[in-house]
């Protein structure tokens, strides 16, 4: 219950919040701003100032440069695959965890945190060890003409692994808070599994799902460590946008590097704004996030 609801039945009384003295407030707010300036605003400003250092023309050229475009295409392709796949995985996992009780449930829950705790480089490494061209599995695939490492499928799969938890972790608390009552009611009324899922569960979680998908997408675009290991950095073929940024930077092509990076910054800012918008909508529908 919110503070306002808790106070008095049907009157509009709102309790005044105990507040700190003005001087303390000013000090704390000032310190916070200081932190933000140093760690958020300056970096943001830097990206744009560097990106446009050589002017608008150079900026546009850097973005339209063929390798850059290829990188953009690859990144978009990855996202287009990763997000739906993880949405399906995530919803299934969340569904299983919150609506049922089974052995190993808490193990599964812990497993979801795994990609968070494991360095993306290690994730990439494991992947390479499992399906690299030198391993039995990998060479078998090679004979079939399927190349995973150093090519697109590898990047996609590695990204799936790394961004897997986002959607599930988003949905689990939400679904737990909603409880099983509605689904059980539908069950007693004779609805079947798919019907329950489609008509009851899904509509209830749509905002959380959307939110999770946005986060997942943002992370997929920006994933660097795992993809770095897996992709082989082959320009024009296995470069995602972040990798392209890295290459440009290591060639001391700073301005171009920042120009391409600015695309990612735009996307990140967009993500942040969308997230906020969804949260506001969430609160309006009185769901506690």
């Amino acid at each position, binding site marked *: 219950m919110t503070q306002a609801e808790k106070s008095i039945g049907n009157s509009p009384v709102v*309790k005044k*919040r*105990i*507040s700190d003295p003005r001087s303390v*407030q000013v000090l*704390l*707010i000032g310190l*916070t701003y200081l*932190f*933000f300036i*140093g*760690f*958020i605003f*300056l*970096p*943001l400003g*830097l*990206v744009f100032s*560097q990106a446009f250092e050589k002017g608008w023309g150079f900026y546009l050229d850097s973005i339209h440069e063929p390798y850059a475009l290829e990188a953009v295409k690859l990144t978009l392709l990855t996202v287009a695959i990763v997000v739906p796949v993880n949405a399906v995985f995530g919803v299934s996992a969340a569904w299983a965890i919150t609506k049922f009780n089974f052995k190993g449930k808490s193990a599964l829950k*812990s497993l979801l945190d795994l990609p*968070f*705790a*494991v*360095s*993306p*480089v*290690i994730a990439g*490494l*494991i992947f*390479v*060890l499992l399906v*690299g061209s030198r391993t039995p599995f990998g060479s078998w695939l090679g004979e079939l003409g399927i190349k995973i490492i150093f090519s697109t499928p590898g990047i996609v799969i590695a990204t799936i692994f790394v961004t897997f938890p986002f959607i599930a972790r988003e949905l689990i608390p939400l679904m737990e808070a909603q409880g099983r009552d509605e689904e059980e009611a539908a069950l007693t009324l004779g609805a079947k599994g798919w019907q329950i899922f489609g008509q009851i569960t899904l509509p209830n979680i749509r905002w959380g799902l959307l939110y999770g998908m946005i*986060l997942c997408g*943002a*992370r997929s*675009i*920006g*994933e*660097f*460590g795992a993809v*770095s290991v897996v992709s082989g950095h082959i320009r024009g073929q296995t470069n995602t*946008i*972040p*990798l392209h*940024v*890295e290459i440009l*930077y290591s060639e001391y092509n*700073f301005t171009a*590097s*920042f120009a391409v*990076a600015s695309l*990612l*910054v735009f996307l*990140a*800012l967009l*993500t*942040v704004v969308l*997230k*906020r918008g969804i949260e506001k909508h969430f609160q309006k529908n009185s769901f506690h*996030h």
Partner: protein
Amino acid sequence: MNAVTAPRVLASYRLSFSTAFFAALFDGFAGLLTAWVLVRYRFPGKDLLDALVDLPFALPTAVAGICFATLYSPIGWLGQLLAGWNVQVINSPIGIVIALIFIGFPFIVRTIQPVLEEMEQEIEEAAQCLGATRWQTFRKILFPHLFPALLTGVTLAFARGIGEYGSVIFIAGNLPMKTEIAPLMIMSKLDQFDYAGASAVALVLLCISFTMLLALNAVQEWQQKEYRS
């Protein structure tokens, strides 16, 4: 086995750990401050700051990496400032800590915020009526209440910091024995096709990650238990 215990590798473990630790600690303070200010006060730009807290989370690590590297380079805006005080950030552990501070920051703010928002106002009012000053109320009542959430956030930031790669390698300079982080060790061994070596280092790191995962779980469960009543 030798790979795991070679001096360079050991140095990289130490580095990853200590930098992640200090960054998480700093984030603890900065995150608590930010969460407090965002929940409790009203001031211009509050919504903007609240939204931007998520930026490190949404921003690709590589972008953050080149950003900080350029910002603190000898000719960068802040690098110039610090050079005046003889502080070098690039190619030093300090740079790594700074990058990790950026990365871990949202974890703390977002775990503390809901707890602060849900806090019953009556508790503070009761303390006030009993004669406590604001500082006493904070020290004796509010901070202990926030501590589980704070710990969870710091643990998350720490776990993330140990494995962080993209945002660190640009600013670190990757000097052997000094600013090589553990994930970089793995990377360089892979580049030399030393799969065995890479795997060995990775294994150690993995064990540490698992331990962190268990610790994280324990902390989170403790947190939930503390806040359930």
